[in-house]
């Protein structure tokens, strides 16, 4: 950014051209007071405390409303200005409730001391007779006290400008004005509890509820910067620790990916760490009952059993599930363990069940199975397609970028069979019937081609086969006329045209593709079709244009990056690559023959092999397949058949019920390491609190088992040493170290220590062998599972904002369960009418695989004939109903499409 010289009180300052005067002054150590300004918000000019004198301007001007210009002469401090500020503060204090409980930062109080107004003899105004303000404590997460509100607008702007939610406003006016959420009651408003307003409130007007009685800012032992443990956005948070416990979580301002923003889970979802239900001791099942044992006994027993089974049935009989919740360091050690101690590549994890198809298609077509672009591009692009991605609920902070873009005029195309909150911001919403994505995308491709909205130059230069390959695609999509596409998908012709026109004509466009696309038996084809559209329109390989699959879990990206994959070593290098195996063997200090070269089994295949008696022992680290796997009745049988199951977790789960040994692990707040977020950003995780009882870091547990199995890993002094080893076998992270991540994350690929990281992929070439992208023309194939007279509905499943995956963490937070904690089934009003079902009525849902009972929620959010259920709830396990039929290319299961029937339960 260009710099200009300005002069404040005679001091020469090098300021950013067109920067905000108040911001620039403070950045240069000139502490002009002010309460309504915040660098994330547009200037308000309400408190008038930042008044200055500027040569050439009349009177006093609010510095927060001025733009820096070369040569500007500013007086920030003189007697008159300081007296004026003291007068205004004196005024402000006269309308304020000055009680302070030490639980929040109070910027007004700080100024009160600075200007000597803490002493009543220095005050000149008697308190104004206060209006009859009422505290609103109806929200599950915060309370608002109007008597401490200075009416600075920061909360309103936090909600509007930062989070794009527009929930807050003023009621009444003048001296009687106060903030209201929605139409007046916070708990009944659309506020979703992200707490951005709490973070930006300069006084004690808006304060968070958790730990209200406990927290004292002067007793905070440490503030630890780390990465949020929930979704894959990778928000940077600061944990406040008091008496050895986390008492608050704030967003870290000024660093990507979140720039201080958090969602309700990131701000309030830490309570599970200190849950009394945490596992604190190793447990061995003896005569059917779990018995607390010492670490030595547990570890010896595990090593002994694994070796015994390996000897008896061979390496093929062992497998491991890594964890998208654990750090890169944990996962790296885990895959190393499976490959060396088990001697097989039977390692996989839940990524198989989420974006495996996306990754498969992207690897083949463009060369990397990760986001092509950076999170900021979601704000700065002209157009966004969100397909099968409920981004506001599943990736709330990525969604803030989208909403800010929408406020600036970005056009949004939502493709989703179910209404999502993003529809409220969308230019057009295409609502295809479940499982018809390929048809819809082929129809859009045909429309784009028919109107000449393709990028011929891009196709010729950057697509394998150039126009010839394009013509093959053109021929294939010929039959997907607008009318045919409408017939196949149910999306009206006009909407297909509109969407194609917006995308085809946008100069830049991003695509966010989610589980709705990937979790189908045609998952890989869905993404191929999407990539075909992106490629012919030339909307990838440049800034603000590309495809980002937002990742579901905190480290689902990283676990694959570091080799938790049956066919890939760390850094996406195929297990068959002898050269790489040689290098890895050297680094690991083992003979080349010790490294298995055949791809192992994938998640669902492991479970099927267990069912068939081929897998005898399974080591699960931080996963809960008894909720997350498809066709749970089958999974349950499979787990029961295992001769030996080790589950390492932080809580008892539905899966630990079947374990022979349960090991207590450290939670994310109790360990050091790194996560990789959705835009390939490697981010630090730092230990904030001690583990409860005897719980240990995952990698240390694995290390011990390895040792006891005769496999000697180096004795790592700390996690940074593990990362160094990891970097030496993971070329995309070769230039990264813990030290480099101290202040901010780095986006891979980062091949050398002086490489800054890569925010946008494919600027010069694609990561395929030819360096060009590849089109994969695909036909629409009708789903094998379809509605029948016996099972007349198609059931979709997914996540909601307040809960997370199998609920192990999120359901142990009172703040989150305070919003919602009940499973439900969404049904279209017309269907409910036909079945004679009332809202909230208890029903049984039955598929060919299993059944469950839950309450009905009647809503036009779904199409007639389609249903939706969140899958977080153990009391209504959606995956009792789903299938384990797999996408042949990626082995993902079709969580999004199950034929069911719904029956009333007469009680």
């Amino acid at each position, binding site marked *: 950014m260009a710099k200009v010289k300005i002069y404040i009180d005679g001091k020469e300052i090098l300021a950013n051209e067109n920067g905000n005067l108040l911001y620039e002054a403070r950045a240069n150590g000139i502490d002009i007071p002010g309460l309504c300004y915040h660098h994330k918000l547009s200037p308000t000019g309400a408190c*008038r405390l930042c008044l200055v004198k500027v040569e050439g301007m009349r009177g006093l001007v609010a510095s927060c409303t001025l733009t820096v210009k070369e040569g500007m002469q500013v007086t920030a401090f003189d007697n008159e200005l300081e007296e004026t500020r003291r007068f205004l503060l004196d005024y402000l204090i*006269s309308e304020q409730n000055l009680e302070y409980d030490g639980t929040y930062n109070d910027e007004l109080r700080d100024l009160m001391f600075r200007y000597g107004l803490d002493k009543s003899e220095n005050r000149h105004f008697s308190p104004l007779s206060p209006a009859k303000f009422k505290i609103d404590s109806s929200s599950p997460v915060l309370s608002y006290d109007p008597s401490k509100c200075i*009416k600075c607008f920061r909360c309103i702007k936090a909600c509007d400008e930062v989070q794009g939610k527009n929930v807050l406003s003023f009621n009444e006016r*003048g001296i009687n*004005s106060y903030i209201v959420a929605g139409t007046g009651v916070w708990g009944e408003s659309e506020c979703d509890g992200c707490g951005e307003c709490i973070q930006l409130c300069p006084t004690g007007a808006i304060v968070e509820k958790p730990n209200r009685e406990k927290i004292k800012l002067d007793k905070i032992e440490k503030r630890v910067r780390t990465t949020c443990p929930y979704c894959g956005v990778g928000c940077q948070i600061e944990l406040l620790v008091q008496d050895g416990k986390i008492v608050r979580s704030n967003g870290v301002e000024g660093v990507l990916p979140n720039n201080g923003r958090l969602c309700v889970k990131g701000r309030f979802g830490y309570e599970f760490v200190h849950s009394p239900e945490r596992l604190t001791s190793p447990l061995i099942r003896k005569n059917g009952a779990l018995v607390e044992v010492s670490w030595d006994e547990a570890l010896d027993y595990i090593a002994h059993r694994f070796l015994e089974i390996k000897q008896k049935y061979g390496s093929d009989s062992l497998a491991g599930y890594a964890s998208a919740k654990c750090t890169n360091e944990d996962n790296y050690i885990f895959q190393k363990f499976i490959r060396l101690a088990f001697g097989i590549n039977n390692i996989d994890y839940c990524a198989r069940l989420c974006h495996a198809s996306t990754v498969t298609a992207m690897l083949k077509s463009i060369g990397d199975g990760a986001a092509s672009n950076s999170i900021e591009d979601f704000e700065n692009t002209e157009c966004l397609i969100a397909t099968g991605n409920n981004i506001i609920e599943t990736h709330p902070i990525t969604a803030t970028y989208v909403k800010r873009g929408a406020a600036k005029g970005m056009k949004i195309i939502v493709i989703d069979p179910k209404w999502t909150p993003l529809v409220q911001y969308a230019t057009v919403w295409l609502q295809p019937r479940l499982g018809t994505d390929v048809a819809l995308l082929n129809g859009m491709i045909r429309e784009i081609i028919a109107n000449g909205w393709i990028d011929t130059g891009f196709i010729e230069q950057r697509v394998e086969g150039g126009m010839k390959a394009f013509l093959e695609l053109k021929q294939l999509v010929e039959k997907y006329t607008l009318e045919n596409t409408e017939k196949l998908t149910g999306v009206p012709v006009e909407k297909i045209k509109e969407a194609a026109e917006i995308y085809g004509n946008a100069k830049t466009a991003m695509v966010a593709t989610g589980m709705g696309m990937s979790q189908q038996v045609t998952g890989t084809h869905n993404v191929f079709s999407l990539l075909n559209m992106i490629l012919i329109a030339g909307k990838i390989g440049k800034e603000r244009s590309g495809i980002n699959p937002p990742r579901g879990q905190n480290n689902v990206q990283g676990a694959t990056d570091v080799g938790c994959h049956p066919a890939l070593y760390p850094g996406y290098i195929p297990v068959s690559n002898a050269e790489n195996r040689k290098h890895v063997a050297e680094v690991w200090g083992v003979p080349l023959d010790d490294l298995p070269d055949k791809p192992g089994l994938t998640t669902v295949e492991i479970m099927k092999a267990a069912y068939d008696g081929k897998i005898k022992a399974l080591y699960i680290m931080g996963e809960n397949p008894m909720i997350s796997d498809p066709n749970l009745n089958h999974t349950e049988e499979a787990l029961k058949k295992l001769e030996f199951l080790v589950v390492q977790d932080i809580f008892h789960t539905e899966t630990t019920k079947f374990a022979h040994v349960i090991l207590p692990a450290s939670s994310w707040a109790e360990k050091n390491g790194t996560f990789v977020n959705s835009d390939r950003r490697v981010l630090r995780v730092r230990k904030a609190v001690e583990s409860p009882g005897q719980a240990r870091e995952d990698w240390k547990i694995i290390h011990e088992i390895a040792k006891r199995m005769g496999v000697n890993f180096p004795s790592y002094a700390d996690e940074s040493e593990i990362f160094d080893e990891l970097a030496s076998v993971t070329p995309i992270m070769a230039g990264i170290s813990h030290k480099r991540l101290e202040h901010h994350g780095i986006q891979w690929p980062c091949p050398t220590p002086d490489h800054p990281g890569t925010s946008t992929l494919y600027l010069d070439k694609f990561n395929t062998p030819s360096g060009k992208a590849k089109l994969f023309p695909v036909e629409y194939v009708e789903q094998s599972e379809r509605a029948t007279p016996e099972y007349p509905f198609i059931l979709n499943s997914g996540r909601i904002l307040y809960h997370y995956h199998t609920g192990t963490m999120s359901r142990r937070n009172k703040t989150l369960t305070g919003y919602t904690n009940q499973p439900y089934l969404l049904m279209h009003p017309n269907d409910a009418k036909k079945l004679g079902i009332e809202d909230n009525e208890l029903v049984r849902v039955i598929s060919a695989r299993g059944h469950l009972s839950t309450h009905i929620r009647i809503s036009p959010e779904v199409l007639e004939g389609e249903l939706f259920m969140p899958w977080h709830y153990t009391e209504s396990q959606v995956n009792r109903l789903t299938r384990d039929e797999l996408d042949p290319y990626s082995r993902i299961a079709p969580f999004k499409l199950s034929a069911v029937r719904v029956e009333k339960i007469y009680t």
Partner: protein
Amino acid sequence: MAKEIRIALRNSGLINPESIQEYISADGYQALRKALRSEPIGIYEEIYDSGLRGRGGAGFPTGTKEKAAALICSNCEKFVVCNADEGEPGTFKDRIIMETDPHTLIEGMVIAAYSIGASRGFIYIRGEYELSIKRVQLAIEQAYQHGFLGENILGSNYNFDLEVRRGAGSYLCGEELTLIESIEGKRGYPRIKPPFPAEKGLWGAPTLINNVETLANFPQIILNGAKWYRTIGTEGSPGTKIFTISGDVNKPGYYEFPMGITLRELIFDVAGGIRNGKPFGAALLGGAAGTFASEKHLDVHMGYDKLKEVGLTLGSGAVIVMDATRDLNKIMLSILKFFKHESCGKCIPCRVGTSHLYQALNEALQQPHFSFESLYPNLIKQAEIMARTSLCPLGQSPILPLRSLWENLSESLIMK
């Protein structure tokens, strides 16, 4: 006795305000016809040369604003807004124009819009003005039917659409940037200034915003020329002004006179003198955000500059007359109560200051004895800081009545 000259009110009472035919018969829309035949530059230069100043109260040269809005960009979206949110106490001139001759306003607006290149306009009318809203709306419909609004106006290829927006009872929405926020559908809070509306106004586009009376002068200036206009009124304040006289006079009402008429003429000749034969006490010029004149000001010429010379303001043209028996402290109190009630609360000095001013005077007036000598200077000191630090004109206003009352009429305050 001074002679009334009607420009803005030239048709008032003479034609049926609901008949466009009668307006047309009275040379209506002839100025528009003439304007559309000339280049836009000719129009704003004419207005500039006429010396017309904003009749809403601030008295800013209209031509300067118009020129700025015309020249800031070409082929870009622009708006013309009419400020008809007449809220200054004692002021009802705009209402009279809208009720008795709405087409004059519409004609003025189309001329103004054409001169800056705006294709869309809004008339923001005070919500309580039911009859004004009805008549302006009817007049807009008629103007569309007769081709004075809409596409290809009078065959000129110029298009202009006009619609009415209703205010909802906030005094502050008469402040131009707040009014613009309100049209945008937002709550009426003042914006940071600069940028001025001519640079960034409605929806961020260059916007010309003028008062009803100002725009009602446009047709006659265009028809008769700037030179003619300058023959009326004074050098610094050309033209006429509508004065709305209320209070303790025998003939309250609205009167349009050339600028430069004296206060004495207005009160004693035009408005028939003080009621019940009582002696003159004071006159509040320009409403709540105005100034108190005393007997010594009776021979001041009513014009922007002459009044400024003696520390008074013309404002909206309201003249609220008080006989010598009135308790000016109570009148001041009601003014301060008004500001407290109307303060939006956005900035600290206005939100808190308007309350303190009211509270201090109110408490003093409850006492049997209090010291004026310490009270008023203290109120004035606070109001001065408010004026220097407030975000918008509302917080900058209480100083006007306070200081003028204390400077001009302190003796009658103390005597009470």
